[in-house]
């Protein structure tokens, strides 16, 4: 049984101008100890989908799913109290902005302590010891001193380490990392990712890594979900995805990687932007930006079909070529 299985998750927001669909029919599974990457541009609904799984969306969000099961527990029908026991206990989340994700009014020690206090029976001394071990584990030098520091006394990288320490405090089985390294310096980014993968392996956690960085995906993930404008357009194991992207969007993303560019050419880009609430095209959502789009793409939305292990939302999935049109 999968650790997390999602079938047809949709999230709509009530706005002043009607419903806005942020996530549409996302289906995915995360196995125990697996690293799943969710990739997409800003506005592709990758964070929203995972916030929905965590139950952290504001009340304006309308969440529907045919199936939303975590570790055998149906999240759809879970009572708020039981839901809160899961959050921070069996499933944790860390966020994009470490500097603002910690409460500025409390010491980092107190914030980690609070997490342990709510989810375990440890007494005060054990909790302190536990928190210090966690700080040590995530690579914070001088944990004894840092325990009493306030968030504003820490750098972004340090804050993210604290967030990670807090998230893994109660040995969750699933950790959702929402662009954990995006807001950090490049050198720190690599350290944070390495730390996450380390912890994932030692704790045998499922890890969902939300990112827009294909480079990060290549280095970390076992399996990849590609999202576009709230829709899941492709899902493949990482090697297959990089070798044989099926969706033109994935292919375009990959060819936009500097590592893959040809020296004598300009770096390829994808023209245009992700459609928002008011400019959703007819037919396939990607058609205005797709170099292969024809009239069928412009009128009829494609249906998800399982074509040799790659779930691709496209009328004309690419067959094999990593450089489409070449």
């Amino acid at each position, binding site marked *: 049984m999968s650790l997390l299985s999602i079938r047809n998750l949709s999230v709509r927001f009530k706005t002043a101008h009607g419903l806005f669909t942020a996530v549409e029919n996302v289906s995915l599974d995360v196995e125990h100890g697996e690293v799943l990457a969710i990739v997409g541009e800003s506005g592709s609904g990758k964070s929203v989908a995972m916030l929905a799984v965590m139950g952290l969306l504001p009340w304006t969000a309308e969440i529907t799913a045919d199936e939303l099961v975590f570790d055998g527990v149906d999240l759809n029908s879970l009572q708020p109290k039981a839901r*809160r026991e899961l*959050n921070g206990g069996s499933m944790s989340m860390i966020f994009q902005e470490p500097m*603002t*994700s910690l*409460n*500025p*009014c409390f010491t980092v020690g107190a914030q980690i302590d609070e997490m342990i206090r709510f989810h375990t029976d440890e007494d005060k001394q054990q909790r302190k010891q536990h928190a210090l071990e966690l700080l040590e584990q995530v690579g914070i030098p001088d944990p004894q001193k840092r325990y009493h520091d*306030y968030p*504003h006394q820490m750098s972004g990288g340090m804050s993210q380490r604290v*967030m990670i320490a807090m998230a893994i405090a109660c040995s969750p089985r699933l950790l959702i990392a929402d662009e954990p390294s995006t807001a950090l310096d490049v050198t720190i980014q690599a350290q944070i990712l390495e730390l996450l993968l380390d912890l994932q392996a030692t704790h045998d956690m499922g890890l969902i890594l939300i990112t827009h960085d294909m480079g990060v995906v290549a280095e970390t993930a076992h399996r990849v979900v590609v999202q576009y404008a709230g829709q899941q357009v492709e899902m493949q194991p990482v090697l297959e995805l990089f070798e044989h992207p099926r969706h033109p969007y994935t292919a375009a993303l990959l060819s936009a990687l500097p590592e893959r560019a040809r020296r004598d050419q300009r770096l390829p880009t994808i023209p245009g932007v992700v459609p928002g609430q008011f400019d959703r095209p007819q037919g396939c959502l990607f058609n205005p930006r797709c170099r292969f789009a024809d009239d069928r793409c412009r009128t009829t939305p494609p249906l998800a079909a399982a074509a040799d292990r790659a779930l691709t939302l496209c009328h004309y999935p690419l067959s094999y070529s990593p450089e489409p049109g070449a």
Partner: protein
Amino acid sequence: MFRFLLSRLTMIVPTFIGVTIAAFSFIRLLPGDPILLMAGERGVTPERRAELEAVMGFDRPLWEQYLGFLGDLLQGNLGVSIVTKAPVLEEFLGRFPATLELSVIAIVFAVALGLPAGVIAAVRRGSIFDHTVMGISLTGYSMPIFWWGLLLIILFSGILGWTPVSGRISFLYYFEPVTGFMLIDSLLSGQPGAFQSAVMHLILPAVVLGTIPLAVIARQTRSAMLEVLSEDYVRTARAKGLSPARVIGVHALRNALITVVTVIGLQVGVLLAGAILTETIFAWPGIGKWMIDSIFRRDYPSVQGGLLMIASIVMLVNLIVDLTYGLINPSIRHER
């Protein structure tokens, strides 16, 4: 923190000098002659007038009078009332507990109601509760104090007969003041019914005086909470699986309080200004009523001394607020 304190303290000195100038000149800018007012209908001969002016020092040039006022001030002397001949400081301190008691109860009332109302309004934004609270607080804020006071007197004292109209305690009770605070003194006196009488006398004035601060605190708490509730760390708190009460009451409120405490501190100035009207309506024997009386009598020393004391209290409270701000906001405390 030390530098923070030092910078606040150095700002107080010029403010204080400014206040002395304002206090000294404002009452003298008012038309009216204290000596004529003292003489009343009988009038006063030019000789007697010159004599009185010399006694009170009004014959000297203004700048000399001001320097004299300042010199006395440095020795802790606020001068002597030209009406009662009692030292101004003594008059002030004798009445201040009454005002302090009224103000403290008013602000407690305002915070006790305004803070939870603002928090709930923010959490249930857009609900009927939210609209009601915001509507009421806008009304309360716009209500002229004297009119609001009169309305309450008509309803609760006139029609319902629940509360007394004026004063601090019923004439049935008499005891020597110990602390100057009627609630405490009436308890200490041990006379049956005295405390209840003091409470009943205090309720209406405190509600009237607390109305504007209540409205301001409710609105400011709501907007501070709305801002804080959308912060990332509130999402983190929810991701930790904390109960809504803890997310809102601890993680969000603690941060919202940073602004709200400042607002509460600023309300102290409003409170003392409001006390002048409230005390006049309810014949509350505090400094507000005394200031009004002194102004009508053109009692220059009392007015300038009283103004100075009130201004000093406001400055002191603001200083305390600044310090509290440092206590509840760690990033200010650790500023170097």
